[in-house]
């Protein structure tokens, strides 16, 4: 027996001395760990750069198309699968296209929130750099939450028709990095938080971002102001929008373009307050636009302009923007319409542009019935550019508010054709109590639940209020 003990102990010794638990400390393959990835302020800058990258991949036409599928500017042609659910206003919680968009936009929030923890950590960043980075992060976070709110919540407004279930009618606000589920905030809290981020960003961001040379790739003070104005405008907070716009448009360094195509980057760059940048065919951040709307290299575009939208534009043949529409198979039974705005291999996608600022201020002033000459003046800037004979169109400033408002909306519709604007305008003014329920856009009333997407089913944890399904066609 003694012998046995000896043998067993020797055996055990031989076997146990031979290895060490440190061997199991191995790194993941194809990934970096935190201590390798985030070593300096430069790395933090790279993470911030990645938030723009991720947003550019959503707002490359995709998010805009999803908005337009809900509206009335697209023909019912070649709209199948997930997109068809958008078009028929019945996005179910398993729609992988809308769910990818949802996750993709929140990915930017996740990245932004990740940076917040790091900014103060590294001393190779100057105080200015730190505040710029923080401002950019808040700008990105606000922009992301705003895009989600547009698709996943009824707009904020005074109409009682959109204020049912007020406590959870907004979106989940992701303020920090956490894996825990977050319930929806109210729509008021949602817009308040977005505005809060932007107000903070305005104070943090520099007048000119040091990395912006010719293009407005990275957020600066004006970009944050412009976005704040847009957020207030979309949430029916017109006075606040006017206040921001007044600051932005006074002695503005931006200049209206002579071109009519917002995507004509060379001519329009003076108008851009913020843009997503493409650097080549292999880096086309307008790929969903080019892939779906181009009319120059296909017989018919994948997605086509509706006859309704075309007929609307055609009502005024003096509108030079009509020239951006291509009529295919003209006069034949198979006549269809497309846009020529997107006929390039790659281009930058403007997100905030001066035209929008003028149109917003004009409409906001008209809605609040104040300073109508300024409203008319703003509107005339756009009119002058858009019509063959602008003098016949321009406003005198003596019109009543409703006339200016109607004109502002008319110009908005003409300017932003196929840019994802139309449905949001419809929902906004509906929420403002201006549209009564029987009035519809392609048979949908502004408060139809079909005009907001279902949240991805995996978002719906205990207590989370899913958007009810309701089709409206």
């Amino acid at each position, binding site marked *: 027996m003694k012998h046995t003990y000896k043998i067993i102990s020797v055996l055990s010794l031989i076997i*146990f001395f031979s290895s060490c638990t440190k061997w199991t400390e191995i790194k993941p393959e194809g990934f970096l760990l935190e201590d390798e990835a985030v070593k300096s302020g430069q790395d933090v800058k790279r993470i911030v750069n990645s938030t723009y990258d991720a947003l550019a991949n959503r707002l490359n036409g995709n998010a805009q198309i999803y908005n337009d599928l809900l509206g009335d500017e697209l023909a019912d042609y070649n709209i199948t699968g997930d997109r068809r659910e958008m078009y*028929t206003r019945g996005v179910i919680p398993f729609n992988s296209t809308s769910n990818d968009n949802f996750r993709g936009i929140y990915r930017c929030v996740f990245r932004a929130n990740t940076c917040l923890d790091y900014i103060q950590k590294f001393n190779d960043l100057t105080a200015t750099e730190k505040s710029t980075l923080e401002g950019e992060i808040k700008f990105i976070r606000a922009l992301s939450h705003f895009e989600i709110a547009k698709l996943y919540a009824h707009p904020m407004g005074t109409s009682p028709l959109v204020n049912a279930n007020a406590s959870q009618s907004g979106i989940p606000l992701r303020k920090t990095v956490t894996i825990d589920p977050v319930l929806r905030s109210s729509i008021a809290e949602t817009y308040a938080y977005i505005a809060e981020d932007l107000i903070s960003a305005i104070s943090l961001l520099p007048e000119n971002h040091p990395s912006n040379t010719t293009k407005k790739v990275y957020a600066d003070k004006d970009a944050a102001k412009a976005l704040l104005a847009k957020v207030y405008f979309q949430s029916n907070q017109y006075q606040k929008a006017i206040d921001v716009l007044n600051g932005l448009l006074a002695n503005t360094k931006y200049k209206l373009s002579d071109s009519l195509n917002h995507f004509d980057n060379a001519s329009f760059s003076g108008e851009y307050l913020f843009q997503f940048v493409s650097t080549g065919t292999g880096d086309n951040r307008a790929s969903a636009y080019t892939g779906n709307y181009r009319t120059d290299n296909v017989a018919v575009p994948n997605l086509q302009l509706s006859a309704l939208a075309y007929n609307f534009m055609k009502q005024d043949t003096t509108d030079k923007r009509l020239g951006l529409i291509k009529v295919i198979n003209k006069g034949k039974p198979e006549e269809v319409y497309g846009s020529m705005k997107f006929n390039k291999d790659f281009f930058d996608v403007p997100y905030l542009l001066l035209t929008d600022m003028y149109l917003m201020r004009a409409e906001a002033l008209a809605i609040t019935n104040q300073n109508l000459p300024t409203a008319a003046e703003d509107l005339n800037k756009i009119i002058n550019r858009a019509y063959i004979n602008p003098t016949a169109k321009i406003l005198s400033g003596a019109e009543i508010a409703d006339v200016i408002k109607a004109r502002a909306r008319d110009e908005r519709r003409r300017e932003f054709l196929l840019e994802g604007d139309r449905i949001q305008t419809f929902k906004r003014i509906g929420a403002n109590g201006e549209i009564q329920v029987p009035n519809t856009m392609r048979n949908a009333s502004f408060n139809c639940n079909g005009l907001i997407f279902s949240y991805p089913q995996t978002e719906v944890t205990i207590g989370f209020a899913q958007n009810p399904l309701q089709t409206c066609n």
Partner: protein
Amino acid sequence: MKRKLLLTIVSFYLVTQVFAQSIKGRVEDEKKIPIVGATVIIEGTKKGSFTDAQGTFEIKEVKAGKYKLKISSLGSNPGYKEVEVGTNGAFVNIQLKEDQKKLDEVVVVGYGVQRKREITGSVAQISGKSLNDMPVPSFESALQGKLAGVNVTTGSGLAGSGAVVRIRGIASIGAGGDPLYVVDGIPITQDYFLNGNGGGMNNNPLATINPNDIETIDVLKDAGASAIYGSRGANGVILITTKRGKKGSKKGPNVNFSATVGTSQPTALPNMLNTSQYLQLRQEAWENDGGTGRVWLPGYSSAQSSAAAREAAYNKASQNNTDWVKLTTRLGFKQNYDLSISDMYKKISYYAGISYSNNESYLVGNSYNRLSGRLNLDFRISKKIKVSTNSSIAQGNNFRVNSAWAGGLGSAMSTALPIYPVRYKDVNGGDSAYFRGGDNPLIAQEQKVWRVGETRVINNVAIDYNPIKNLYFRGQGGYDYMQLLDDQYNSPQLLNIADSIGGNAYRTGTFTNNLNYFITGTYNYNPNDNNKFSFMVGNEFQKSTASVRTQRTEKTSGPFYDKTPDSLYQNQVSPGSAWAFLSYFSRVNYSFKDKYFAQLILRADWSSRFGENYRVAFMPAVSASWVLSEEKFLRNNKSISFLKLRASAGRSGNSNINGNARFLTYRTDGLYNQQAITYPTQAANPNLRWETSFIWDAGLELGLFNDRIFTTVDYFDRRVSDAIIENLAISPSTGMDNYTANVGRITNRGLEFGIKTRNLVGKFRWSTDFNITKIWNSIDDIGAYSQDAVGGGTNDTRPIIGSPIGTNYLVRFSHIDQQTGLPVYLDLNGNPTSKWDIANRVGAGSVLPDASGGLTNTFSYKGFDLSVLINFVIGGNIYESSAKRQLGVVTDWNMRTDLFDRWQKPGDNAQFARLTLNEANYGSNTVWINTTQFLHDASFARLRNITLGYNLQPKAIKKLKHVRSVRMAVIATNILTVTKYPGLDPEIARDFENATDRNMSPNITYLTPPQERTYSFQINVGF
């Protein structure tokens, strides 16, 4: 191992004294087939010999006299023969009977072998020979129906497709549910998702393993057996032992050649509509919806088209009638050749084999070819030291085609409409450019080159050292390298660009290096005849890294393997995986009087996969068995020839989790504004750990009437805690791609029963082998997550508390309203409703069968043998996920002739609803109307395999020079299936997105190609 040591010792002691006489003889089995490598020993002496390839042996230098020979061979009962040696020596013919008790057969149990008698856990063994009877896409498919508790769902009809193997059910949601595969001591790379899910197929990591190389497969089923693999053993362990050198004949080594040729056809073909049927049904839908004139047609006109335009389109479309199913399928041809040579000498033995196979599936363009070689060597360096090496290399090429949702036959079953032509016609009526107005699977079929080349090298070297009596050491180092090169070339025609521009090519290379070593020491301590102990301790380390590189080039004329690209447009490192395990383990066996046995297993695993708060998993298990038939009161019982009771209890784990899952990870690929980016992909989980299973098992083995009837019954109970929920489970608003956490609890219980009977013995023999396993499975907890948050993917299975894993979560379909012809659903309270609402989903079925098993009958008469395998599944459900589009709202999909039984006028009692183009008529806002209308009973019985063989009789063999044995066989698989399932094939393993999908959604079909039916001819010649 012990047997080999014994052989070594025996050969060593073969005496060298000179005597005049010798004993010669021949050993054969009941079928008169020579037994090769049997040991023949003169009882009471150390004299002996082995039989050669002809089954003959010679024991030289024997004095005249009477002797008793003991003949033993694996798989047979030892035989005894009295022999009298005269001055001329002696010649004896010995027939060994097929092993009945098999108690002394050795079973591989992980880090060693045990005699069957000693086994205290639940272990099943199958010989490699019985795997080779049947042509299968991959060896694991051949396990189907043969072992109790081992459920195999054969993969689809795609060449090289993998099966889903489940040992005693499934008890994981998000961690891989596959057993651990160990080849000659190396836990091999077995990740089904290394190459994602491209073209409707997952890469099968087992496809490169040559079934002809396999000697035995042992399956460890309960904790008493699998706990030795600790945190990786809970799903069961499949131990594969490859062939080693066996003693050849005087004329030379054993040489075996086999050739199999055969055909492949689908077990069923989809019944899609032709043009006139399609147009008729579509027109009817249009008119039902109030449309006038001709219906609009996808690819030709739209709902907004004018009546004239629709009419013109209709007339144009009706000129085509393309049978896409026919164009995407064919009769496939299969061939397999295998040559092996082996021999055993005093110091060295070897086994060398080379194999080539080329298996075409019935899908046009799809085939898998494999060239493999193996060399296994044993060097008996001294009495105390033996060195063994195993080397194998295989090159598999899978010529892929799009399938299922990705195209090919899947398109033919969905969006490739009969009204679409393959090509436009030119003015003379000849073929012109490809039709591109709608889905045309022929473009990719003809214009895409897709090859997944897999190079697999599995090597190991082992040293056995026996320094003193009863003390054994084994050290083994293994290396398993797997290289996958997924090459795709899209020609200009496919891309629809000018030929002069050139096509584009992609290559995704996955390079997996898997290294392990283990050292074990075993000491057998036998203080007296009654008490025997065996102590084993061991240490193992394994490390695996898989790196991925993605490359893309444009303006090229062929795939990367044909044409080295001039420049790369993309060349980047993509996420791979890396993991390591360090383990210490021990096994103590005790036996008392060779009838009471007990075993204790302890194992501790450290793993890189475990979060920092849980670095080590500790897995103990105890088991015991009692051979009652050795007791006095049963020893002479005439009916009961063998009776053994077993019981085991212990912990075992499942660590099939992504090695990256516990880390906060970053990536740096890509640029924005031509500036570098760095981004986080997921949050860290320091609490990530193995799933813990507490498993107990009670078993009974009973042999009756001299083991003419032998039965095994086991009851098992597995409780899983810390069950993993993986990928996509957390709120998408976290913005993270993945998060994996331990949140669930699962119960999996079952009863397995196996019986082998030898119904007829004698000249005409008939034996029956039957097994059945019944499983009860339920999810007990999924933490704070909702069913949908945990997911189940696109297959509409969800984890429902109290229901089995893989519960079909669907809106209930009630009936078709006879007046309106519209579908009626049930709401949550069971009240009829015309509205399809996902809020009304309930757990309506389960993809897990209630029971499954197999029945094999083997008949033999003279040289003929016939084996018939039927496998069956009882209960469970199939969800035919694509049927909602083929038999639902009329869309851009083709439909099936099943729709002839549809509602057309009030009063019709029809199976399918009134046709419509508008989903709103079916109360839905989507055409993806998942309901129980397409949930079917999954029960089936299938004539899986019939093999009729003939072994050339010894007389005939003698006439053939150099030939030792000849066997010819005709083999047919999947000949007949009895099922109520109205779809294609009731046995479904579709393509999966991830482990959760693989666990929860077998038996969901989504345009999945049915299995193949094969007819083959096989010839085996032994030299």
